[in-house]
């Protein structure tokens, strides 16, 4: 096992934040991490969603994070950007969902290393422990 491949398939803020925190700390500790954002997990990264803060929220922890307004808990986008400077963290967008939503990579916040299909992801994940969120 040489790191984690995290499939982020949910757009719920709680899950997206958890992925960004765990992925960031792992990468900052020199453990390679690849995040594959797919389904609604990719939607959470749309510029419009991030700018308006209009995230899917599952429950009280999510509302508390939104209310903290980034003072206490930085938003996942900032977290990931920062972590990429500290360690081996790569973030990929799912090509299928991009097509489905008629989006280009520029429609998402600038944290992506590129886009991948399923086989591309599986290849990158082949030596890693896969976490599905």
């Amino acid at each position, binding site marked *: 096992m040489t790191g984690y491949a995290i499939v982020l398939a949910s757009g719920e803020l709680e899950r997206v934040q958890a992925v960004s*925190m765990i992925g*960031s*700390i792992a990468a*900052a*500790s020199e453990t390679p991490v690849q995040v594959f954002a797919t389904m609604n997990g990719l939607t959470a990264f749309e510029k419009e969603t991030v700018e308006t803060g209009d995230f899917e929220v599952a429950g009280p922890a999510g509302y508390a994070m939104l209310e*903290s307004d980034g*003072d*206490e*808990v*930085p938003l996942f986008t900032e*977290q990931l950007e*920062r*972590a990429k*400077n*500290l360690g081996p963290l790569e973030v990929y967008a799912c090509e299928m969902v991009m097509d489905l939503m008629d989006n280009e990579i520029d429609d998402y916040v600038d944290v992506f290393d590129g886009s991948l299909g399923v086989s591309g992801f599986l290849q990158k994940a082949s030596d890693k422990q896969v976490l599905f969120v």
Partner: protein
Amino acid sequence: MSESISPDVTVDSRGAACPGPLMDLIGKVQDAEPGTVIKLQTSDSGSKGDVPEWVEEAGHDLLDTVEHDDYWSLYVEKTR
């Protein structure tokens, strides 16, 4: 003992929740030379427990943890 430790760098992460303080510390540790002593200030009780876990895993030394009224100071020496 902590009074005798004089840090080379102080990182003030008070007010930030997990994992902010740890990220702040990691950033400083990466930039520092081995032997550097970093004082991390945090008001987050989760970080007080989590930071030492990381320090041990990463192979650095936790020299001391000092409790203040509403925050903690963790003294970390970069060893490698």
